[in-house]
């Protein structure tokens, strides 16, 4: 029998439906891989029993002829989604031991669709980071290694690094991610998998621990484009509990997948050609352009003139919102409380927050508090909002002459753990290509396209018009079919 953990979501779904294997067999196979992969530190909590329960229900549904869209598919859940009865930490000490009495809308939709949960996936603390090194529960280690023979531990990307590592290592066929400024796309690129951030508002934010509300958006991470479409269909949808939720029907993305791009135009943003960038990145980008032409698309150059201001604007807006969103972690009602002997309320706040938040979270809370302060607000926050508007207009103008935009996902392949941890600015630069689409709320996807000279995966990013996930998925599929990316990390763990 084939190794069930090598199957994609679509293959598991279809094989289970056809009776090739039972859902319990699938869940057991993935549970075994999870149990065998402690060295990757991809999970904060493992929930094999949840996966088995869902699998039993899936097998019963098959017998009864009442199969659901994700029956028999076990997945990983980023530990930013609140899960009823299962510890939810956002990878912080602050929420260690916190067990929600409610289920996030997105995870509930997935369970309702028949999926099972293998566990809660590690991430950067409060989703703040690009390498997974800010997790209170230790960094995730990428299953990938450079082919130089050295055994340097590499970053799986972040913040959805547990999700990316787990999928790349076949610990789960798909997982949820969240993307605030690249947190789905960059880790997908670093680990040779696929991930899509849909249009802002497609997936409900209700029950997801908030980082930056105007940017946070959930999306799927999986091995291929089809699996992303299947997962997204079961995550998206209007939610009256989220005031920013899009009140639109959920398209049948999987049914409409097509890699025929005749009549489509692909824009290549000239401002994304950075001086001194890794030549492997440029080569991959050029290869991607050729692939889309081969799929029938026309290619035009487009201009996104305010790109260079995107990263500074992002690092004002996101911390500003975070500084306020994270004020609720005060030690009063739940989570960590540090009450020194004889301390009053203010001392309790200070002690709890000093103890509960990691360095990167504190850095962003301080940046955010500073940019919102009286006297600085206009110079920073107001200015950043103006930049955000200009960036959105850049995209609108560009989309007047193209249907999707093609660019690299990240400026480099995965770096070694610790290599950038001491230099926050170098770390922030990782998101230079990802952040503009986040600021504009646009759907964007990363698809594995090549290996660099070190043997590490590189991802191409496709950015689409608002609500046009289909255009993004289709262009992604055209690349996927042509790139023939079949490389996978060799098991060392």
């Amino acid at each position, binding site marked *: 029998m084939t190794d069930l953990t090598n199957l994609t979501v679509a293959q598991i779904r279809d094989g289970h439906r056809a009776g090739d294997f039972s859902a319990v067999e699938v869940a057991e196979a993935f549970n075994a891989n999870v149990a065998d992969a402690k060295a990757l530190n991809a999970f904060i909590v493992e929930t094999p029993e949840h996966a088995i329960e869902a699998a039993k229900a899936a097998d019963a549904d098959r017998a009864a002829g009442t199969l659901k869209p994700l029956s028999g598919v076990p997945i990983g859940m980023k530990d930013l989604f609140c899960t009823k009865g299962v510890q939810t930490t956002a990878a912080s000490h602050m929420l260690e031991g916190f067990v929600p009495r*409610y289920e996030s809308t997105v995870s509930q939709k997935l369970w309702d669709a028949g999926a099972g949960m293998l566990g809660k996936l590690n991430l950067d603390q409060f989703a703040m980071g690009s390498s997974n090194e800010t997790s209170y529960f230790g960094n995730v280690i990428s299953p990938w290694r450079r082919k130089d023979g050295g055994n340097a531990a590499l970053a799986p990307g972040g913040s959805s690094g547990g999700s990316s590592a787990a999928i790349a290592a076949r610990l789960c066929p798909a997982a949820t991610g969240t993307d605030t400024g690249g947190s789905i796309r960059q880790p997908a690129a670093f680990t040779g998998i696929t991930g899509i951030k849909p249009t802002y508002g497609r997936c409900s934010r209700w029950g997801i621990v908030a980082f930056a509300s105007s940017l946070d958006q959930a999306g799927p991470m999986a091995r291929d484009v089809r699996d992303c479409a299947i997962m997204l269909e079961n995550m998206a949808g209007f939610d009256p509990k*989220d*005031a920013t939720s899009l009140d639109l029907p959920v398209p049948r993305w999987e049914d409409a997948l097509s890699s025929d791009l005749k009549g489509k135009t692909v824009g290549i943003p000239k401002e994304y050609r950075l001086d001194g960038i890794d030549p492997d990145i440029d080569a991959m980008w050029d290869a991607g352009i050729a692939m889309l032409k081969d799929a029938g698309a026309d290619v035009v150059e487009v201009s996104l003139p305010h790109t260079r201001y995107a990263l500074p604007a992002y690092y004002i807006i996101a911390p500003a919102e975070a500084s306020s969103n994270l004020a609720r972690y005060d030690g*009063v009602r739940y989570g960590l409380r540090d009450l020194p002997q004889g301390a009053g*309320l203010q001392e309790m706040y200070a002690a709890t927050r000093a103890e509960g938040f990691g360095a990167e979270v504190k850095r962003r809370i301080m940046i955010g508090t500073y940019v919102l302060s009286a006297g600085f607000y206009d110079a920073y926050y107001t200015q950043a909002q103006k930049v955000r508007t200009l960036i959105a207009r850049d995209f609108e103008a560009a989309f007047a002459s193209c249907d999707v935009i093609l660019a690299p996902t990240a400026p480099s392949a995965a770096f070694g753990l610790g290599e950038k941890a001491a230099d926050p600015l170098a770390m922030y630069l990782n998101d230079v290509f990802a952040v503009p689409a986040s600021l504009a709320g646009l759907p964007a996807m990363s698809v594995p396209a090549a290996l660099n000279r070190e043997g590490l995966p590189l991802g191409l990013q496709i950015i689409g018009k608002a609500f046009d996930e289909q255009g993004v998925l289709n262009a992604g599929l055209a690349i996927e079919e042509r790139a023939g990316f079949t490389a996978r990390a060799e098991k060392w763990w």
Partner: protein
Amino acid sequence: MSDYRIKGETGEWEVVIGLEVHAQVTSNAKLFSGAATAFGAEPNTQVSLVDAAMPGMLPVPNRECVRQAVRTGMAIEARINKWSRFDRKNYFYADLPQGYQISQLYHPLVGEGSLHIEADEKAGIAHGKMIGIERIHVEQDAGKLMHDQHPTMSFVDLNRSGVALMEIVSKPDMRSPAEAGAYLRKLRAILRYVGSCDGNMEEGSMRADVNVSVRRPGEPFGTRTETKNVNSVRFVMQAIEYEARRQVELIESGGAVVQETRLFNPDTGTTRTMRSKEDAHDYRYFPDPDLLPLELDDAFLDECRASLPELPDAKRARYEAAGISAYNAGVLTAEVESARWFDALLDAGAEPKAAANWVTSELFGALNRLGKDISDCPVTPAQAAELLGLVADGTISGSIAKQVFEIMLETGDAPAKIVEEKGLKQTSDTGAIEKVIGEVLAANADKVDQYRGGKEALFGFFVGQTMKAMQGKANPQVVNELLKKALG
């Protein structure tokens, strides 16, 4: 212009007052969550996951709260902003689970409006005095700390956390404690007419932050202080008076007023420093990214406008036009329940002027005596109209009407039935009346002589005697005429 002045040692000072009134919006659910809002519930029984600021919880605006604030704005003829936005006001406190209050700083729901306060000569309030209103915005209330539950810990009750408030900000247009009191009473009346706030200051549904400064008449504004959370009209007036005197004494003794937040002590009628400007929070207001801007369409605004009741000023003008005295019109419109009751009385056919006199004297007097509100009045407007009708058509006299009303209050019976059963119908039977007059004059021959001798004041005596002999049931008009004839 008010001529209210604080007389200091160095001369006279004018007081400048602005009020920020927090009015709890009448709504079954909170501003951004579905939790209930009933007063007096057990602590922490009306708290949703949103109100407790659990991780991942999101606010969703309650349309009814927005509607009530818009209707309130319309009632003070204010500009309604079709585009407004919620902002976060950030600060840490144990009664504020989110660590921020959702409010509206930059783009409030309601813009400038104004309110007409009642003239009061005795209190020095001139006719036609208008108080400007700067804005009304909508915001969340905080929870409540309880310090008396445990020897070393404070408890938090989140029932109020997230309850919708309107903050109604006046311009610094008031010049005396009396004007501030009149403003509060008028505002409260309008809120209650509109139904957007029950105006109950004891339960905390309405409270005021009082801004006070003093200046020499005609000079620019002085430095103001803000006294927080004063919860009755009387206390607001006391706080202003105390604070104005304190500031005058401070300035006259060579000091300067510091811009600060103060607390009012209702037991002593004094204020004290709560925090100074230096300790003021930097609230780091910014647009709440969990919420989209609030956009109101014309259909919504039309519905709000159409649902407004007749407001106190319009009602009062209508009453006066119907011949009711200005004083009575003021009394009848001061409370929405009285006005509604009176309107029902008019609808049942009562003559306005007589009805107004009867309600303000007889009815209010009776209710006062019984310790009842108009809302639990034992007599219905229809019954009262019937009673007034019996007087108007001469079936009973005014004094009999009083007897009938007493019986109505006790039994709840219809007046016509009471008159019938007790035989209280007044008589205009000239034969019967003439007979009684004959007896009265015969029994008082000496007084008749005096009357005829020029002591005309005795006429009332003969009327009284006749009425008494007829147990009040004679038509007074007829008695008068026949007496005049008999005394010729």
